[in-house]
């Protein structure tokens, strides 16, 4: 009988025994010491160098955004007919990246998948940071950003409502809901850990801060009861959001008349793509985190293995989606759709189309091999490829469809400007700055949740007490 077959009494067949989710001996105490004490340690020099790099990127982006405010959207490459380009590509890209976190946090919680516990908090934090990056774009991409607040239906004396039929407005609600629910969910999960830190820390300043953030958590049974209920509710809410938010974002395209956008496959296609891109980013970040923060025993190769399998599954779904697009274009006998599809693979931006296909479908197939799923090199290579591929997929959807639609007289070539690239760089800067700060300031692993899946955590009924 193996010590970590913790759930059921009696003999359990080998095949049904879940592989361990921790490496080596992990007790609640050692877990606390490993994770909760981390924020109290001084960051190494590499962290500062990393932060310097990300801050540089962030401020570059801010500079370019300021330039855009000052000059106008003309500072970008957008034109007629490509009215949306990097701005909306980046928006969809970042919203998409956030979906992995919520899936891991919420959906896998409801499915009782224990492997999510170690990575849920980091993934959820990445969701919040990704949504923060995404939210920048609706605000800055408008021609008159000082009036961006008109997108919100607030009471006014002009008797003006916003247009609820517009998908952009659905975006406003969806993304705001997504951000607020994710934030609450994440914060709720943090409370017990912050309370632990409050109780452990010796620094007065830290204790004050943690006291405020812990909201008076004392670990009482009633607290735990409320906590579990709230957590379950928020997980339920967030689950819906995983599917709805990116579907609503896809409605920006699917409800329009643009050939290549107006397709019913978009909502599931986008959601799958979001999960795909999000998991890739999570894998990339977690590989770095487990190495630099000595969390290899908690974020195990098994975790990475499972996440890579999800990436592979999503890649297959994406492959199916692309094939369906092609099939639809042919089957529809609609020449606009047909031209739109052929344009992706043979047009001006055909290189982007092929880049997308390679990075998103062809290269991730390597993950069929177990060795690849266990190899840092392949994981990171494929994850970077997926990130690039998913960015380019939005480029393909937006720019390629727009630049050649119904009337050939309006067909024009789109060329991005340095400002476009600068702002994209800035969002990566913002994202990784927040990740770096989060890693040092808050506990990156939900210790309460991991404690719940440790071998000692589950009640043993009449079990041997040897370890």
């Amino acid at each position, binding site marked *: 009988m193996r010590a970590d077959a913790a759930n059921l009494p009696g003999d359990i067949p080998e095949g049904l025994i879940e592989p361990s989710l921790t490496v080596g001996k992990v007790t609640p105490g050692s877990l606390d010491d490993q994770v909760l004490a981390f924020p109290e340690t001084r960051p190494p020099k590499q962290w500062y160098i990393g932060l310097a790099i990300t801050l540089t990127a962030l401020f570059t982006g801010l500079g370019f955004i300021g330039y855009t405010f000052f*000059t*106008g*959207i*003309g500072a970008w*490459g*957008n*034109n*007629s*007919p*490509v*009215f*949306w380009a990097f701005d909306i590509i980046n928006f969809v890209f970042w919203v998409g990246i956030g979906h992995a976190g919520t899936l891991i946090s919420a959906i896998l919680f409801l499915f009782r998948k224990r492997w999510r516990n170690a990575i849920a908090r980091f993934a959820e934090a990445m969701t919040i940071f990704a949504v923060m990056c995404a939210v920048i774009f*609706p605000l800055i*991409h*408008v*021609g*008159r*950003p*000082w*009036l*961006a607040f*008109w*997108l919100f239906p607030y009471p006014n004396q002009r008797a*003006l*409502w*916003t*247009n609820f*039929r*517009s*998908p*952009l*407005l659905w975006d*406003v609600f969806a993304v705001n809901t997504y951000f607020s629910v994710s934030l609450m969910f994440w914060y709720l999960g943090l409370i017990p850990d912050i309370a632990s830190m409050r109780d452990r820390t010796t620094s007065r300043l830290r204790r004050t801060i943690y006291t405020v953030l812990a909201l008076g958590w004392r670990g009482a049974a009633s607290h735990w009861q409320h906590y579990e209920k709230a957590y379950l509710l928020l997980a339920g809410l967030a689950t819906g959001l995983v599917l709805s938010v990116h579907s609503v974002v896809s409605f*920006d395209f699917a*409800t*329009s*008349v*643009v050939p290549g956008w107006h397709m019913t496959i978009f909502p599931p296609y986008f959601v799958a793509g979001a999960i795909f891109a999000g998991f890739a980013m999570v894998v990339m970040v977690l590989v770095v985190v487990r190495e630099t923060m000595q969390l290899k025993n908690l974020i195990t190769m098994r975790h990475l293995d499972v996440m890579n399998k999800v990436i592979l599954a999503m890649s297959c779904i994406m492959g199916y989606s692309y094939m369906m697009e092609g099939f639809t274009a042919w089957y529809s006998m609609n*020449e*606009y759709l047909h*031209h739109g599809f052929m344009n992706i693979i043979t047009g001006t931006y055909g290189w982007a189309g092929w880049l997308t296909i390679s990075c998103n479908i062809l290269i991730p197939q390597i993950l069929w091999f177990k060795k690849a799923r266990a190899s840092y090199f392949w994981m990171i290579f494929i994850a970077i490829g997926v990130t690039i591929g998913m960015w380019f997929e939005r480029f393909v959807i937006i720019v390629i469809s*727009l630049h*050649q*639609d*119904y*009337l*050939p*007289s*309006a*067909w*024009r*070539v*789109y*060329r991005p400007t340095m400002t476009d690239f600068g702002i994209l760089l800035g969002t990566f800067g913002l994202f990784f700055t927040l990740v770096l700060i989060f890693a040092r300031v808050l506990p990156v692993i939900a210790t309460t949740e991991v404690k719940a899946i440790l071998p000692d955590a589950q009640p043993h009924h009449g079990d041997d007490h040897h370890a």
Partner: protein
Amino acid sequence: MKTRLPEHGPVETPRFWRTLDERIETPEAQRAAQDEFLPGAVPGPFDDVHGLPPQSGFSRRDFLGLVSATAALAATVACDRKGQGTVVPYTRRPVEIVPGVANYYASAFQEGRRVYPVLVKTREGRPIHITGNDEHPGVKGKTSPRAMADVLRLYDPDRLRAPKAEGRTVGWAEAESRLHGALVAAKAAGRPVLLISGAVASPTRKALLADLKAALPALEHLAFEPAAGDAAEEAAQASFGQSVDLQPRLAKAKVILSLGADFLNGEDPEALGAWGAKRRLKNAKDEINRLWVLEGPLTLTGTNADVRVPVSPSRLGAMAYALAKELAAKGVAVPAGTDLSSISAGVPAELGETSKLWSNLVKDLHRAGRNAVVLCGAQMPVEAHQAAHLLNAMLGSEAISGRAAEPLATVRDLDAAVQGMAAGRYAAAIFWDVNPAFAFPRASAWKEAVAKVPFRAWIGLMEDETAAQCQVLLPENHWLESWGDFTTGSAEVLQQPTIGTLYDTRHGEEVLLGVIRALGGHAPASYHAYLQGRWQKSLPLGTSFEQALHDGLVKIESKAALPAFRGASVAAAARRAAGSKAEGLELVLFPGFATHDGRHANNSWLQETPDPITKMTWDNPVSVSVQDAKALGIQEGDFVTLSLEGATLRLPAILQPGQAKGVLALALGYGRSTGGVAKGVGANAYPLMGLDPASANVRPGARLAKAGGKKDLSRTQSHHRMEGRDIVRSLTMDEFAHNPQGHHHKPELVSLYEDQTFPDHKWGMVIDLAACVGCSACVVACQSENNVPVVGPEQVARGREMHWIRIDRYYEGELENPKVVHQPMLCQHCDSAPCENVCPVNATSHSPDGLNQMAYNRCVGTRYCGNNCPYKVRRFNFLEYTAYKTEPETLVNNPEVTVRPRGVMEKCSFCVQRINDVKIRAKGEARAILDGEITTACMAGCPSDAIVFGDLKDPKSKVAQLVAASRAYRVLEELGAKPAITYLADLKNPPPNGASSEGGPHAS
């Protein structure tokens, strides 16, 4: 809220509290505020609710005051409205001007030999919009795109505002005394004085020049028009013995043969009106004309041809004389003395395989007889012109008329002048409204020669290359500030000022009147007096001068018949033609659509209006035929060197479908070196012109080579094929008769939503593509009416031009000789508009009378509407395109239309300001709106009446009837957007037995 204090600033620039000190004021007032309820009381401890002690020295009132002040401060800073000025009503109103009510003045615009009778709309005393004079029986209210755009030049900031002498600003007294001194001295010494002016189309100006000549006998006058075509002048002298101003009368033409003649390019609104009337067929049985075009470069007229054959321009004469020979063989009488012996009979070599085409052409001309006309392009070689004159004479064509005209100087005359100047012949030179320093082919020779003339004076609108070489510069009135008169075929036309002079300028004529007086002659001080004096003597009985000014014209019964044709002139020309060979590359230099001869290069509206064929703006690339480009390995935008007899240009090349093999085409009027807008735009092609007027604009022996590098072309259209989509329909007469809808079925539109009901009116438009020639007058009219901004070449290259209406031009078939179609595309005002649903802030909505409205002040600029418009007619202000504008440029704006700021979408509004104007007027007069009473700017500007606007709910309206036409269709109808604009398919009338324009003959 406190009372406004003096230190808050004057009323015009309202500021709120700039510092909190202003808000909180003095300590005394603060204390006094605390004592509001009871003098001397101190605020008690109110904050005992939460058990917290009251904060001393800081009452709740102050706190709220601070908070609100901060909030107001923040809000105010955010609310700072740029460009706020002061609106002050008249205290003494000028008699003519009623704010808000437009005045219309009849006047006239001259460009070269052409006269455009116009109606000028002024608001608050400023001309803002030009249309044709509706009283003129010829133009019938239409005018050319450049005439419409010239209102911008009135407000050109580069205009010379005061006289200059040796570069310093001086007063008129000093400048004129210099001029008079020089001329008096010249007269005393008996030395000739050179005067170069533009074409003299004005009888009063002609009389004035005669008076001047009387006062100064040694005056040598040249009338120089670089765009008039020297060969045309030479041909007229040879064929008729005098200079002739030709006017086609297309109403009488059943068959038109164009030898490179671009008579449909918008310069001749009368011709376009007749063309439109002939092509806007209701039934297939109605009579239609047939247009044959033989030309080298693809012209707008060529795109509208029923049959087009690309041929080298140098061979046009030979082909036309061969036609004459064929006709003579068929028994058509030749004028006495005609000798066609040097012309060989039979089908010309160029048309080898397609002899059917030739025989059809001959048959058409023969059958049409008096109702046929042969027109020759002004820039074509002299023998082509002479052949055209011969053919018209043989056919006895009634479809062409002409009047004796004042002779124009050719390059040869100018060259003689150069030599005279270099030899020190002239004591003084005066340049009046001409720019020979730019337009004379040998610029350096000109410069050296001019420097040898002791006294040089210049009279003109803005300093140009010629002015740079003159000592005394005399600024002239713009024609909108001037008096004048002109003779047209059907009326004597008057030009009157529509605004008092903006700057210290004068009539050029008044300068000369001053000269006459200085030389001892009699002349009134003002040109107005001079003109009125002449007119009052010759007005017909019962017409007052005031009435003539009101109408802008006096109608005349003109028997403008062509002078007698001299058969003896044929022999020499025919020999020349027979000897012509098309070898190597032949360069055709033609006046640019936007710039004409270069005078309009500083007009940003025109520079940005795309050339109707190439869709190029802000540049003059050399057009290369598809075959030559392939042979030389040239691609669109490649830089090339174009050299001819020592002059070399480096410029971009574009491929031109339909251009004859071996022919290069390049527009004149670019490459100016003066003018804020014009400077550095394009390349100056004049150095490539020849000094032989017989073929100054068609030059053989050009050489073209790749120069390395590629230019980002400022082109409004970069894709020229319809890709098999049903966008522009073109029918032959046969198809029109039997199957006007072709294989297209009207799509069955199913909607979940209820259709919107339109209780009173439903505005709609019909555009007849058979009448639309692509002249782009509608584009300029719309820009003028709706304050459409100009964005500049870099922005056009990026795809951000702002025109609300554009003309899409597609090539069909083989590129060597394609069928070309034009389609004006503007907001379709769809009943189920895809753009309306997707605007998150409701900035675009559908009005109860069918208009798609755009609320500029609500638009935040998400640009979703632009994406969702399948016609891509929405325009976004990517940058602040109007921020740099100050007076005088802003004076041209139409006050009835908002000027849009950056970040806002705009598009065609069906000229809603005009619709509302008429609605208000009709309501005030308690009557219904008449059909045709509302004219959109594009409809009013279209010379061939291709655009019709009206109320679709009125069954008797023209639009309602046209919508039911057999060749009516809507673009992208299957999308279910329900556009309010219906198009009528284009019509082509090729000969029934095969020879057609598409896939027609060409050299491969």
